[in-house]
């Protein structure tokens, strides 16, 4: 390697070790992350596509703005951050390791100069007695000291929680572990979705990338139900599920209850209550304003039907008993959305027991049709989110390490005390890796206590 090569390698290394790079990456990541919260991600809503110009759409698409958290430049920044924190750790760790593993145990005058607030005072009696007293004192008041003799002088070194200097590297490591967990999850796991009709079973699910994934077992939906609060807000979405192996129910997974916030896991695959719907038929009678030309109309599930006057209709919600939503009314009701032939859209409620309300609504709008609800034949299905993520445990391990690391890095401190006995003089000093001022106060109290013990005065 020539010296210019070496300079080049050195400058690259320095670049990756620099905290300035860390600052730039952290602030840069914060700034560009905003893009994905403003621009829609994934499948674009049609209104959005209409709103922006085709040129803009093309530019955004080529820059990866519509899936920016997986774009090459965002991933690149995450890699840079990883390289940066690994490089920083490699550069600083050996020095920290030395501080912990090979501490300075001799309280030399050079060491003394590196500390502030060093105190000296004479001791009574001979050096050996003083030595024992200091050793006992440090052990009971601070930490067991390392005692050594050098040139006839006694040196003491005592420390507390030296390992907390490693905490910051533990936090850096935890970030990498979380990344590893996320990568394992994306390589070996999948996220999917499946709808199951009441009474039916499925053995494969559709992944987010629209791939059919075979589960290796079957899952049956025995029942789905919705419970409401008195004010009509949903209280519980509940699926009763049974796992089938070769068509036979698995004992511990038979009639298992799955609600929101309480999923079912079988063979590493977890099923989460996510949505529901009615795939049954809704029945209506549609007539002109004056009640002539009545026609029976059946709407299947979420489908839309075309009415005689050319408008189309679909059902958005239905209930067997409307009284819990509208006191004073009773019987079945359905909320329908009507797209009339001239492009107008309206959403309203039609009733089974209150034909006058249906007529009134139609009259208020001047034109027909009058829609009467005739009830429904319910057939519920449950919508389940399906996930397999073998990396998730690793992510939690990383999170645990991060929390412990941050705690130790912020709230624990490596405290050290050195003492020397030389020619009848005791010299004492120390420092802390954090909150030096607080430690100095603590040290001052220790010093005055030690002074009393070594002055030869008898305790009363």
């Amino acid at each position, binding site marked *: 390697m020539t010296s210019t090569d070496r300079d080049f390698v050195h400058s690259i290394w320095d670049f990756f070790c620099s905290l300035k790079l860390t600052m730039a990456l*952290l602030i840069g990541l914060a700034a560009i992350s905003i893009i*994905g919260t403003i621009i829609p991600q994934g499948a674009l809503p049609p209104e959005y596509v209409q709103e922006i110009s085709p040129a803009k759409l093309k530019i955004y698409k080529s820059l990866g703005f519509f899936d920016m958290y997986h774009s090459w430049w965002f991933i690149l920044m995450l890699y840079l951050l990883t390289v940066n924190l690994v490089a920083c750790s490699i550069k600083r760790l050996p020095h920290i390791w030395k501080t912990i593993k090979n501490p300075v145990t001799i309280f030399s005058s050079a060491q003394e100069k590196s500390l502030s607030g060093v105190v000296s005072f004479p001791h009574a009696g001979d050096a050996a007695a003083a030595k024992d007293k200091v050793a006992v004192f440090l052990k009971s008041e601070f930490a067991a000291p390392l005692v050594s003799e050098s040139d006839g002088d006694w040196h003491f070194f005592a420390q507390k929680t030296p390992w907390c200097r490693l905490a910051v590297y533990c936090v850096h490591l935890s970030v990498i572990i979380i990344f590893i967990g996320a990568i394992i999850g994306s390589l070996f796991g999948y996220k999917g979705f499946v709808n199951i009709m009441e009474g039916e079973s499925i053995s494969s699910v559709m992944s987010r990338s629209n791939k059919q994934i075979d589960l290796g077992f079957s899952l049956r939906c025995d029942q789905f139900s919705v419970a409401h609060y008195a004010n009509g807000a*949903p209280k519980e*979405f509940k699926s009763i599920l049974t796992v089938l192996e070769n068509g036979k129910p698995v004992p511990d997974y038979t009639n298992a209850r799955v609600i929101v916030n309480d999923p079912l896991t079988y063979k590493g695959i977890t099923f989460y209550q*996510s949505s529901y719907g009615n795939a049954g038929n809704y029945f209506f009678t549609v007539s002109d304003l004056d009640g002539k030309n009545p026609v029976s109309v059946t709407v299947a599930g979420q489908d839309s039907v075309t009415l005689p006057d050319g408008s189309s209709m679909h059902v958005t919600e239905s209930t067997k008993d409307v009284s819990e939503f509208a006191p004073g009314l009773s019987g079945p009701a359905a909320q329908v959305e009507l797209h009339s032939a001239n492009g107008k859209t309206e959403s309203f409620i039609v009733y089974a027991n209150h034909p006058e309300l249906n007529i009134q609504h139609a009259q208020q709008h001047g034109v027909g049709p009058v829609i009467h609800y005739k009830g429904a034949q319910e057939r519920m299905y449950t919508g389940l989110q399906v996930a397999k993520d073998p990396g998730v445990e690793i992510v939690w391990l990383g*999170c645990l390490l*991060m*929390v412990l690391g941050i705690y130790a890095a912020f709230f624990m401190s490596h405290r050290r005390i050195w003492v020397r006995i030389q020619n009848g003089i005791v010299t004492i000093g120390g420092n802390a890796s954090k909150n030096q001022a607080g430690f100095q106060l603590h040290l001052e109290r220790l010093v005055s206590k030690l002074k009393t013990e070594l002055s030869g005065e008898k305790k009363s």
Partner: protein
Amino acid sequence: MTSSMLFNVTAIAYMISMIVFFAFLASKNKTVGLVGSLTAYAGLAVHTVAIGLRWKESYDMGVGHAPMSNLYESIVFFSWTIVLLFAYIDIKYKYRIIGAFVVPFALLGMTWAQLGMNTGIEPLVPALQSNWLLYHVITCFLGYAAFAVACGISIMYLIKVALEANGSTAQAGGLMSMFPPLKVLDDLNYRAIMIGFPLLTLGIITGAAWANYAWGTYWSWDPKETWSLIVWFVYAAFLHARFTRGWVGKRAAWLSVIGFAATIFCYLGVNLFLSGLHSYGGGAK
């Protein structure tokens, strides 16, 4: 006596406390400062009782849950944590004047909640029926409150730097004598963020754990999640700035202010301007 009445009393106490703190700024009279603190503490006590009472009221209604389930309840809790943290700093570090820059945040929250929001107790929708709700909300909002306090301290820092650079007049110099020294403000800012950052980290992790338990995805780049990560990046930058030459002092104070602006956007802006999973008492996903 209802919790809503007590929340009104709380808001009034914080308003009085703020006015007294402003009088303290002007008069430099120590007794005035003490009155400011005591009023804030009285408000905090009433606030605490009111939150407990609201919790009990929800059980009396048969929809019992911790009062942290919608925007109104979260902002009431946020104000509570801000004053709690101010009390901690006031008692521990004895820099009472910080109250003049921190209590207004709590007052703003309480006033908005009491005057501009629906205060009714709502039953929990299925998505929120989980013990994670409590852990997630408490850690997040304690973190947010620490950032609010840090922001107040940073504003003090920036005012002091600006006035001192102007070769301040005798009057401003007099006011400045009330402010803690720059070094202390810088240190307090750091300490507040040292409390906030671990709590935000815990808040994000409990949120991820909950999301994984409810939906099977611990991270889905939902706007709320992304913004919490943005806030995390900003404060991580702040913490690293302490070890970087040229980034201490003024720039660090600005980072703290920007961090809190991002926090507020994460908390309110995302709900008001963007769509996502955190609809505060809206429908389940």
